[in-house]
């Protein structure tokens, strides 16, 4: 019964329908602004509920795509409207639909001007994100992948901090510069294969010399999105200037688009090149992990610190993906989902104190635990999850990546593990400086405790972080069949390369 409904299309375009309703609720007075907020939260929550059907109806035993929908779009040219999910994309869709209502709720009072436009931008953003993960056609994928830039550019630029213009431009131009090279590669593949259909292209054998160049083109795009060192510099700027909700989505979902791209395109379509380039990517990732960890240690701005920690964590993800074995890729996927939850929560934690004190300087805080005990607990759980404490989702991802990395090379595992230690250092230090100590400043003494809205945002995130930490099976079961097939494809290429040599 469920399968007869185009659930993926509904999940993708429901937020756009919400935009239409918001456009109808015109007017500039307080009540219409409130209506916009209510509409946005209801639409995005309903989208989340609908997207749960994807999880409920998902059959773990099927390796291929489910909930497929295919219609003619640009007829006779091999480009079609093709949606579908497998174990790789389904968790990301849920992550996007889950984080969007929370982010809207997070910006309930902190966005004071142009509320209507903000809600519109956010709902458009949701459509783009979900559509990107659901696309099974490269043309559609690119449409959504790039389309994300429009709402995000506006979110950073209109509702951001003092240097928002610089940050928005940097974000947009960095990402665009990477993506256009991918576009040329998509054109090339389209001309070779005659279609942009992802399932067909995944089985299409490209000559290794083509793979080499195509891999570089796709890499340019995804490396900027992940972001990998040395093209990560847009991320701290974008995070610091973006409003809280923007940071939550940026860290929670948008960074994952790069990792998703590697898994969806680079590995199955260019297996030989992936094997060839793996050491190069390991090098960049290790540099990212260690270098950005040190940079994070030196930060005085809370958001910037967490932004750099994101770069380090995404370094783990790229290592995991390019170990090309089952543990590594599963770990990378798990790490992405877990980091999506944790970083969104951490950015929201910063947002909470920022709303009260209007500064993100670490030195301005201290002794928050006395004043806001609930906050200290939530922040601690998230901080420890980010560090990778057993019992939290962060641990599962990191241990799997490390096992995968160890299988690949022990020195790689050693360097990656160093990153874990450094990560613990800067996070614990951040926590000590903000939360512990004696609350001396009068502004801090006056900070109100967490309200229900804030608890309502943090609680679901915390539940999932701990749940996946203790019982990761629901997610792993979804991932395993696809990842097994994927790592098999790539290892065949590995064997083929080895036998050639």
């Amino acid at each position, binding site marked *: 019964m469920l399968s007869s409904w185009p659930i993926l299309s509904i999940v993708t375009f429901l937020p756009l329908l919400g935009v239409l309703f918001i456009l109808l609720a015109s007017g500039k007075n307080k009540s219409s602004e409130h209506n916009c907020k209510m509409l946005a939260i209801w639409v995005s929550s309903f989208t989340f509920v609908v997207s749960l059907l994807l999880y409920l109806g998902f059959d773990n035993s099927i390796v291929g795509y489910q909930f497929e929908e295919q219609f*003619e*779009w*640009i*007829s*006779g*040219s091999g480009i079609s409207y093709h949606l579908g999910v497998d174990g790789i994309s389904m968790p990301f869709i849920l992550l996007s639909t889950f984080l969007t209502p929370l982010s809207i709720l997070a910006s309930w009072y902190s966005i004071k001007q142009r509320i209507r436009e903000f809600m519109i931008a956010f709902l458009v953003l949701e459509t783009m994100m979900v559509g990107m993960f659901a696309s099974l056609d490269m043309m559609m994928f*690119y*449409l959504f992948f*790039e*389309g994300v*830039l*429009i709402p995000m*550019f*506006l979110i950073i*630029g*209109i509702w951001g901090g003092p240097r*928002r*213009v610089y940050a*928005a*431009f940097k974000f*947009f*131009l960095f990402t*665009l*510069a990477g993506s*256009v*090279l991918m*576009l*040329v590669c998509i*054109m*090339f593949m*389209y*001309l070779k294969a005659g279609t942009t259909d992802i399932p067909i292209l995944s089985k299409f054998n490209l000559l290794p010399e083509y793979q080499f160049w195509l891999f570089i083109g796709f890499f340019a795009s995804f490396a900027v999105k992940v972001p990998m060192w040395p093209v990560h510099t847009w991320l701290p700027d974008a995070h610091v200037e973006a409003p809280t909700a923007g940071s939550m989505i940026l860290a929670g979902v948008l960074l994952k688009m790069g990792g998703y791209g590697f898994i969806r395109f680079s590995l199955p379509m260019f297996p030989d090149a992936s094997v060839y380039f793996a050491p190069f990517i390991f090098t960049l990732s290790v540099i990212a992990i260690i270098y950005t960890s040190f940079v994070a240690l030196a930060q005085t701005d809370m958001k910037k610190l967490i932004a750099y920690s994101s770069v380090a964590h995404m370094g783990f993800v790229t290592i995991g993906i390019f170990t090309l074995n089952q543990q590594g890729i599963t770990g990378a996927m798990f790490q992405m989902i877990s980091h999506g939850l944790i970083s969104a929560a951490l950015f929201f934690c910063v947002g909470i104190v920022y709303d009260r004190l209007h500064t993100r300087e670490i030195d301005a805080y201290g002794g928050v635990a006395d004043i806001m005990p609930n906050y200290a607990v939530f922040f601690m759980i998230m901080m420890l999850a980010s560090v990778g404490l057993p019992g939290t989702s962060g641990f599962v991802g990191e241990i799997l990546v490390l096992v995968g990395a160890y299988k690949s090379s022990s020195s790689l595992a050693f360097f990656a593990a160093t990153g874990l230690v450094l990560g613990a250092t800067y996070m614990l230090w951040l926590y000590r400086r903000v939360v512990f100590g004696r609350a001396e400043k009068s502004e801090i003494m006056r900070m109100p405790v967490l309200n229900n809205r804030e608890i309502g945002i943090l609680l679901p995130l915390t539940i999932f972080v701990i749940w996946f930490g203790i019982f990761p099976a629901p997610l792993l079961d979804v991932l395993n069949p696809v990842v097994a097939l994927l790592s098999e494809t790539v290892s065949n290429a590995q064997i083929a390369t080895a036998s050639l040599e």
Partner: protein
Amino acid sequence: MLFTQITFQAALPEYILALTALGLVLMAAFSGSTNSAKRFIKLTALVGYLLAFASIFVLPSESHSIYFGLFRINNFLIYMKAIVLIGAFFACWMVTSDWADGVEKPEYQVLIMLATLGMLLMISANDLISLYMGLELQSLPLYVIAAMHTRSLKSSEAGLKYFLLGALSSGMLLYGASLVYGYTGFTRFDDISSFISQNVASSGIIVGVVFMLSGLAFKISAAPFHMWTPDVYEGAPTPVTALFAITPKVAAITLLMNVTYFVFSDIRFEWMQVIIALSVASMIIGAFGAIMQKDLKRMMAYSSIAHMGYALAGLASGTHQGAAGVMIYLTTYVFMSAGAFSIILMMRRDGLPVQKLSDLSGLSSTHPYWSFGLMIFMFSMAGIPPLAGFFAKWYVFLAAVNSGLIPLAIIGVLTSVVGAFYYLRIIKLMYFEDVDQPLDEGAPTENVIILSLSIIVTVLFLFIIGPLREWSHGISQTFPVSGML
């Protein structure tokens, strides 16, 4: 037979425009200069364009060559004529009666109608003589209307500059044409084409082709023949700039395509070099030149140079696919430019038109609809999906990649990133900055309709692209190319 039914039927839009233009001359001479008379003249002109557009649908669907081979139509050319007529209709309709830059004079309508007639003849040219005739019929009225605002020094300068450089380029074109004639002995395109396919092309012909291409490159303002564009765009009255931006380029690029694809298709490896060089130069100069501009119209001038560079990238492929790509590109270009200029035309402060970039600051808080529209056009011109400009770029670069011109495509997409910078700057001004001095409220209905229509086309282009692609690929096959790749 000189006059048969087919000779009349095939050139119907041209006849309609010519007769309407003559009628307008009479009306302009005998009517007073009252507002109602001006309105009536504008209305007549609009009806003329509409009739001409409607007559497109009764044109014969097979290819025809009439008037002793001077004039040729096929479905591809008809499509381009339709685009030109839509653009001309917009450009004529956008001029509201309270514009006092000289364009309120009745002569203005007569001149742009004659220019449009010239464009249609250019598109259908099938002989070096008719090519030159069409080109000059198009150019001369444009020289005049660029200088239409007689009290403005800049407008006079623009007209003079345009005229001098235009005359130079026409001279180059003529010289090239005379070389081609001298070495082949023919003026008809079919004859030249078959002569070249049967004989080895001598260097004289190639020199002639290069000169002809240079002359045509001037008309589409491709770099390095773009020098006039920023000054003319800036100096000419805004309605005239809008016209310049929208229609003549479509006609000139069609002519260029006619010449390269049809007449000289057997020496394509020679002209491809020239087109590639023009394309690369235009994309780079268009992208980098616009960065420093403070004047909105100057910026649009550089933007149009860049757009011509992209369109030429499709042309450089030398395939039917490239022809289809150019068709799609020009279609989106007409709507995006018309929409953007409909907003620039509405920008006034205290009743006076303004055109500085800084005048846009904070536009989103005072004029949300205009700024939304301009934002859409800017994202679209930057080639951001899912808007129209993305699909246009996709099809021209796809054709280029298919012909093995991958470096050209890479340069193209990279310059589009540079281009994105200045398009984003406009969005930044409108959305990220506070309002300085608000622009006037109130907008003419015509402009709002054109704006809305262009927004709809630009945003919903992803629904149109399917049929348009199929159709454009179909009719680009009617392009008679001898010995195609």
